[in-house]
């Protein structure tokens, strides 16, 4: 027989002000199976908890219902108290009398009656509760870091330096990401590559880091502590062990006119290539799409000139399976496509470029060796217009959000331009200047005051070419919205930062959620900014939302520390609220008929097969079996099972039925 204890909390006056707590306790005490019932001012306080513990011991309670705040608030508190008093913690349930009752209703009879109903419902449930025991899962102390930009690099180094293994996967032939493309960085104007390349080398040399470039995540299975990842290593067409990175092949390759991704199309590369001189690893790959041999079956020049015989035309993509305990996603961002700006002529006029292209023009390692020369004819622009918010804060273009980094880099661009072209004139069309950050506002003021950059508050409506000039039609909203027309030599669009193409697909592979712009979603916007909704998968950098380098690095270290915390224990303990397939005596064994429709409904691939054999070892039945390590306890399978052969602990069919019956029968 059940001996249930009911504990009604006044929560100071929070509950008691509208609910007659004493009467709730009294009425509950009269319910069948309730052994003890009491109300108290603060049930979560020490004396309150003591009250519960004593009652458990003295009355020999078999179950506890606490009528107080939301279980999302104090369920762990009260379950722990029960455990300390020797009662299985899962024999404790909470009736939500505060958030769902006292705070949302006025003081009257119906409110108290509702409180009674809620308590009675949970009493009926708890009678059917069964003792449950936490599930222990071992932890694989290796982290998978996806993306080798500054976020992935930082996270990898932090985890590796804490003594754990890291597998860093990068889709491009080299790590470095967008940061390696930047010229100088705000607000200090230090050279981006100068601060980044030492980190890249450190990654390559770190004994705890295994670097897989030109590789992508194919599949991710499992759950926190025990993921199984399948990585596709795209064929580089070279034997990395033999290649010594001498570069002969890249100089001799006859296909030289391929737009360089690294130089954002402003320079060219060969078909066998190293993306940029400081690349890590500094070994080439063959771009099959553009290689004459792969496309036309003729050439093989690289193979002939290679001194070590490292070229492998027959190499194929390779799938490798790895086991990891945590994943850090650091896949970065992209910038908006040219086709989105018909009124700005981007894609039509060569001298209308993006901010990222300007970075390459301003970079000492770029196609112009750091001189600002316009793409069309190589002339130094005398007048240059920067357009902020090109795509950002523009719901019509599908991007209502602020890209966050453009205000600062546009100020930097104008500044770099003024430093390099002393007699030049620069204009920035902007809507607001968002320079919240250490030394950021000062930086922008310097651009305006010291470097004489003309800031014009207003948006540009159209850019067109007339007589070799780019006519920029904008407005100065601070001068009574006076239309402004500037004849510019070059225009730089601060085009919006957007999620990487394929982000959605990647999110689905990993079962992490993403927002409507395809940036990955953090578990909580304030308190869990680096976690995802999937335990064991963390976020770093601009794949979560646009952010600048310092912020990216901080988040990467945050994500790394989350992984390190996870690795600090040998095993994980999980709530046992998971699905189980029933068992019954022979000859039935289980009522499961093995249709396995639950398996296709399971979001976690947690349902497998179990063969039931007789004494002679002959298979007599094939039934479903839940892998407790994978099951997350959503219960979709339970609702789907026609014969009710699968059930979920803590939310079982019997319990839920009892709740429904109890809730609706109050007379």
């Amino acid at each position, binding site marked *: 027989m059940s001996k249930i204890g009911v504990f009604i909390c006044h929560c100071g006056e929070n509950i008691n002000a509208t609910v007659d707590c004493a009467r709730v306790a009294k009425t509950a005490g009269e319910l069948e199976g309730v052994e003890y019932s009491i109300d108290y001012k603060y049930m979560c306080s020490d004396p309150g908890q003591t009250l519960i513990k004593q009652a458990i011991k003295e009355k020999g309670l078999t179950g506890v219902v606490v009528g107080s705040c939301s279980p999302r608030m104090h369920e762990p508190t009260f379950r722990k108290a029960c455990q300390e008093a020797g009662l299985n913690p899962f024999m404790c349930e909470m009736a939500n009398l505060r958030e769902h009752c006292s705070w949302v209703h006025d003081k009257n009879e119906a409110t108290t009656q509702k409180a009674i109903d809620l308590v009675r419902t949970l009493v009926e449930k708890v009678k059917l509760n069964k003792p449950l025991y936490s599930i222990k899962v071992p932890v694989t102390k290796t982290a998978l870091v996806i993306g080798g930009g500054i976020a992935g690099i930082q996270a990898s180094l932090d985890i590796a330096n804490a003594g754990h293994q890291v597998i860093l996967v990068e889709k491009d032939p080299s790590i470095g990401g967008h940061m390696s493309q930047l010229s100088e960085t705000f607000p200090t104007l230090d050279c981006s590559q100068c601060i980044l390349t030492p980190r890249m080398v450190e990654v390559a040399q770190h004994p705890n880091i295994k670097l897989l470039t030109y590789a992508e995540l194919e599949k991710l299975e499992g759950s926190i502590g025990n993921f199984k990842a399948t990585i596709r290593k795209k064929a580089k067409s070279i034997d990395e062990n033999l290649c010594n990175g001498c570069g002969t092949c890249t100089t001799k390759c006859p296909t030289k006119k391929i737009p360089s991704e690294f130089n954002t199309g402003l320079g060219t590369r060969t078909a066998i290539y190293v993306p940029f001189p400081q690349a890590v690893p500094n070994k080439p790959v063959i771009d099959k799409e553009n290689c004459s041999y792969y496309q036309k079956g003729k050439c093989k020049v690289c193979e002939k000139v290679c001194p070590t015989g490292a070229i492998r035309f027959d190499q194929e993509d390779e799938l490798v399976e790895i086991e990891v305990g945590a994943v850090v996603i650091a896949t970065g961002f992209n910038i908006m496509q040219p086709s989105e700006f018909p009124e700005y002529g981007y894609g039509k006029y060569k001298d209308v470029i993006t901010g990222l292209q300007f970075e390459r023009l301003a970079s000492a390692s770029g196609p112009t060796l750091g001189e600002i020369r316009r793409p069309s004819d190589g002339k130094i622009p005398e007048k240059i217009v920067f357009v902020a918010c090109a795509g950002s804060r523009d719901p019509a273009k599908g991007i209502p959000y602020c890209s966050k980094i453009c205000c600062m880099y546009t100020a930097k661009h104008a500044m770099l331009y003024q430093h390099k072209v002393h007699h030049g004139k620069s204009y920035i069309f902007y809507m607001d200047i968002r320079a919240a950050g250490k030394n950021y506002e000062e930086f922008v003021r310097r651009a305006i005051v010291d470097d004489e950059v003309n800031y014009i508050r207003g948006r540009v409506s159209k850019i067109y070419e007339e007589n070799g000039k780019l006519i920029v039609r904008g407005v100065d909203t601070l001068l009574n919205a006076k239309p402004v027309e500037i004849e510019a030599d070059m225009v730089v669009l601060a085009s919006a930062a957007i999620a990487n193409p394929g982000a959605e697909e990647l999110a689905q592979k990993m079962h992490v959620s993403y927002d409507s712009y395809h940036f990955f979603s953090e578990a909580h916007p304030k308190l869990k900014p680096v976690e995802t909704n999937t335990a064991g998968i963390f976020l770093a950098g601009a794949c979560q939302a646009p952010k600048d380098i310092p912020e990216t690095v901080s988040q990467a270290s945050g994500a790394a520390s989350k992984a390190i915390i996870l690795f600090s224990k040998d095993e994980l303990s999980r709530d046992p609220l998971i699905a189980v397939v029933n068992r019954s005596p022979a000859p039935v064994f289980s009522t499961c*008929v*093995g249709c396995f429709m639950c398996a*296709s409904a399971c979001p976690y691939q947690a349902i497998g097969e179990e063969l039931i054999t007789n004494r002679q070892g002959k298979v007599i039945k094939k039934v479903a079996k839940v892998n407790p390590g994978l099951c997350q306890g959503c219960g979709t399978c339970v609702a789907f099972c026609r014969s009710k052969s699968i059930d979920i602990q803590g939310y079982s069919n019997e319990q839920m039925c009892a709740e429904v019956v109890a809730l609706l029968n109050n007379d």
Partner: protein
Amino acid sequence: MNELIKKAVALLESDSVQVIIGYAEGTGTRTRAIFITRTADCENLIFDSRCVQNLAVYLTKSEIKKLGKPAIVAPIPVLRSILQLAVENQITENDLVVLGITPQSELVDFESFAAIEAFLSTHQIVIEEKYQETIREIKAMPVTERFAYWVKELEPCFKCYACRAACPLCYCTRCTVDNNQPQWISVASHPLGNLEWHIMRAMHLAGRCTDCEACYNACPMSIPIHLLTKNMLQDVTENFGTYGPSLDKLNTLSSFKPDDKESFIR
């Protein structure tokens, strides 16, 4: 159907199968299912338009399974059920020999379930116009009248479960109606129990039912329960596209599309 008999004899003689599930003359003008284990009995096999019982129901029955590997006489409704049973992991290709029968009463061999699916793709499930009309009429009733209509229609049900026994897809070891922990539905054959039973039965067939009408044919009270499944079939087509058993499509209710459309969720 000499050809069918010859084929059956050959199968038994070569011991390729141990039992033939087929149709034979029954009482009066009716036909019945027979289970032939000896070549001599093969001559009892018949096939004509009266053979409407869905034999696939026997494929999952343990009594029949005990007889050994079966060959089954399979007109189109049976073929559909076989395919659905295969999708649901209840039978495998090695478990049986399918003696397919076309609507022109020709015998066809099927090498694989995939071949059955290919064949069935040219014989899609179609809800006859007369049923569509009836469903439209029922749906046109005011909601209370419609409810009263069904309560009345279901009243004669005395929970004999013939519908369940005849349905090839009701192969559960223990039906939920027999589960009393919790007591999901009222066992007695009063209006509530009847209503709940038929709702559950229909829902359990959602996206699975192959419209063979075996349930309706089996019902001693001729309750039009097949209208419920036919209506669901229409709903599936309307909401989720094509319908019918398929080896590589997931079941309607154990799969989803992120952009499934509905108009009633706020």
